[in-house]
């Protein structure tokens, strides 16, 4: 059943739903935000997630993983999204962890995966140098030097970049910006000399950092995969993360929609529930259509990862684009249908709206992925 959760996946989804609702509801994010928390996530929450095995879901048993697949991980992401739970899951597992697993030698996997799984190490992918996602635009350089490579350049938006102790850095060992030839991936200790990180305060309080690499020396063993051949690996990593992000977005959209439909039933104006107004009913129905389509897109893409389908790139772009569109629709309608109260910070709807826009941009917006989808389908 490609488009359904099996019973184990469903069990995981149910567990995650309860867990995040209890331990990391929107109020927890609000607290991190208002206290201007330095870390931007709660380590004790992450520890609980580690104990539940969620950092291990996608990794091979050989390195201590559960080999349970991305569909299971997607179930966790959806529930984290639904609660706006602040976790290092995207940076450490979906991006960094996927990169080590897909690009690392046995030795490299053995070096890093157990640390990720045990919660001893946090990862991030340092890729985007511009405000709009575009992997081939990478300028940052890596040239041979010392007993390995010297990295030089700047990354503008690194998810979880401020808390990671290891960064998977995309740099150019050859080729020119605009071409995907010549990219390479390196695992860099965040504490290396020459690495300077600055937290960026995003509208949605998501963990984000700008990172400057000033002549940072890394050993040859830091290289993941073949030098200059990193584009395919990077694509594979990004597609996994895009689909996980789409699952997270499905959770955000689902919360916004459910909350709005509930409000339509409860809010009285002109002596009736506003949900009895047909114009609002039809708009709610349109959101429902978009959400059902979105769920199909996410499930198909998650399945494509686990089945190693050649359709993955197209399905990943489909999921990310469709979820971006759905989320823009649903978040705007949620604010509008809540009326004045929807404009207040007190209501959680605003937090979800802001999270939505950052998610839309991360790893490529709808326009980026429509273009990529068309290219993949040859038109």
């Amino acid at each position, binding site marked *: *059943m*490609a*488009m*359904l959760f099996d019973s184990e996946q469903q069990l995981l989804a149910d567990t995650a739903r309860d867990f995040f609702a209890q331990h990391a509801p929107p109020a927890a994010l609000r607290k991190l935000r208002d206290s201007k928390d330095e870390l931007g996530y709660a380590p004790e929450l992450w520890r609980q997630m580690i104990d539940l095995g969620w950092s291990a879901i996608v990794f091979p048993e050989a390195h201590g993983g559960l080999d349970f697949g991305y569909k299971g991980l997607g179930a966790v992401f959806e529930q984290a999204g639904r609660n706006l739970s602040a976790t290092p899951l995207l940076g450490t597992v979906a991006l960094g962890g996927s990169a080590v697993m897909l690009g690392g030698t046995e030795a490299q996997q053995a070096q890093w995966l157990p640390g990720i799984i045990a919660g001893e190490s946090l990862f991030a992918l340092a890729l985007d140098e511009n405000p709009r996602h575009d992997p081939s635009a990478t300028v940052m350089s890596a040239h041979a030097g010392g007993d390995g490579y010297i990295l030089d350049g700047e990354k503008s938006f690194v998810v979880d970049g401020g808390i990671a102790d290891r960064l998977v850095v995309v740099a150019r060992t050859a080729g020119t910006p605009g071409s995907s030839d010549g990219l390479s991936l390196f695992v860099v200790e965040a504490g290396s000399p020459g690495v300077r990180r600055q937290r960026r305060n995003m509208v949605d309080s998501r963990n984000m950092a700008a990172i400057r690499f000033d002549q940072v020396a890394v050993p040859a063993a830091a290289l993941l995969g073949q030098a200059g051949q990193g584009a395919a690996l990077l694509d594979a990593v990004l597609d996994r993360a895009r689909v996980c992000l789409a699952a997270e977005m499905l959770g955000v959209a689902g919360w916004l929609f459910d909350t709005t*439909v509930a409000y*339509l*039933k409860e809010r009285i104006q002109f002596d*009736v*529930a506003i*949900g*009895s107004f*047909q114009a*609002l*009913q*039809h708009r*709610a*129905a*349109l959101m*429902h*259509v978009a959400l*059902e*389509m*979105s*769920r*199909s*897109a996410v*499930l*198909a893409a998650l399945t494509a990862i686990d089945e190693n389908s050649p359709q993955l790139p197209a399905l990943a772009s*489909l999921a990310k*684009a*469709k979820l971006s569109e759905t989320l823009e629709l649903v978040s705007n309608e949620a604010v509008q249908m809540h009326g004045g109260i929807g404009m207040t910070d007190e209501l959680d709807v605003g937090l979800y709206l802001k999270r939505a826009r950052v998610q839309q941009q991360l790893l490529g917006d709808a*326009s980026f992925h*429509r*273009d990529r*989808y*068309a*290219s993949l*389908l*040859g*038109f």
Partner: protein
Amino acid sequence: MDELQIFRTGVTAWLEANCPPSMRTPPGDGELVMSGSQVEFQSEDQRLWYERMRDKGWFAPGWPLDLGGGGLDAAHVRVLETEMTRLHCRPPQINLGIWMIGPVLLEFGTDEQKQTFLPPTARGKIGWCQGFSEPNAGSDLASLKMSAVQDEAGFVVNGSKIWTSHANHADYMYALVRSDNQAAKQQGISMLLIDMKSPGIEVRPIDLISGKSHFCQVFFDNVRVPAKNLVGALHGGWGVAKRLLQHERTAMSKFAELNMPGPDLVGVVRRACAGSEGRIANAVLRDKVAGLEMEAHVQRLTQQRIVEMAKARQDVFRAAATMKYQMAETEKRSAETMVAALGLQGLGWESEGFSPEELEVTRQWLNAKSLSIAGGSSEIQLNIIAKRVLGLPE
């Protein structure tokens, strides 16, 4: 090898031997045989395929043998259908009598009705048309007004039906009529079987904005219908009709795959706006086409998800209620986009200067407008979602 497997092997062999190769291609517009007393064939292969399937009893494979059917149970019927699909066999004929009124007569009909109507229908001798919609009863079907006044011999019918497919070739109509003016809307309706040769019937084909069509409007002026042609209980027609419409949905989904695929969006736009390496040159148009292809893609995925949910015995209504709306709106926008991409070349009506594909794009654009109107308008679909899925209040 179990019995079903043996049956499948036999069916395959028979189909390969008896279905002419030309009947194993997608049928073009109007290339399917409408059965009835005046059946017409466009080729010898068509006639052969028709007669062979008829003689096998496979026009209505699931009906009892003594009523002209094939006597197969559901599992065997499914094998036959699967094999026909797999071998791309066209249906040998089309008849609403087999798909819609037949099963209803099997369930609700009197013995006399079954004996009178089912065997000739199964043998393709009676062509049926459906008389439900009226000029003033569209989305609100139950507001129909065509009156049937009872007398000693049966009913006297007056009024009009519209959107009746192939009424001009049909032998009988199954029609909903208002038999009781006083009762609440749904309670005053009966279903009658009406001989289309009865005096007082006039059939007028309808021209659509896309040109000629198989739709007709049918006018009834004091048409007499014998009492024995009442289906189900007097004033009980609404229940019968609801059952019949379930069969319609099954039939529609079977036929959905049948039609020759129309012009495809990417192909048409790509040819009209050719860029390098087969890409669409105009970035704005390309973005739009990609968005529409993605909509078509997610709806195919949702269709697949619904099938899997049904197999897993999950409730599919939340998801299924979205499909008609989504498909209709995407298809309409795709058709608009093709016309826009072709420019004035996509707006020809006939004759020289326009390619068959271009004219087909134009027809498809106009026809697509009906997708959000017929069979439950988009507005009705949204109402259903709002009320029955989301539970929003009246």
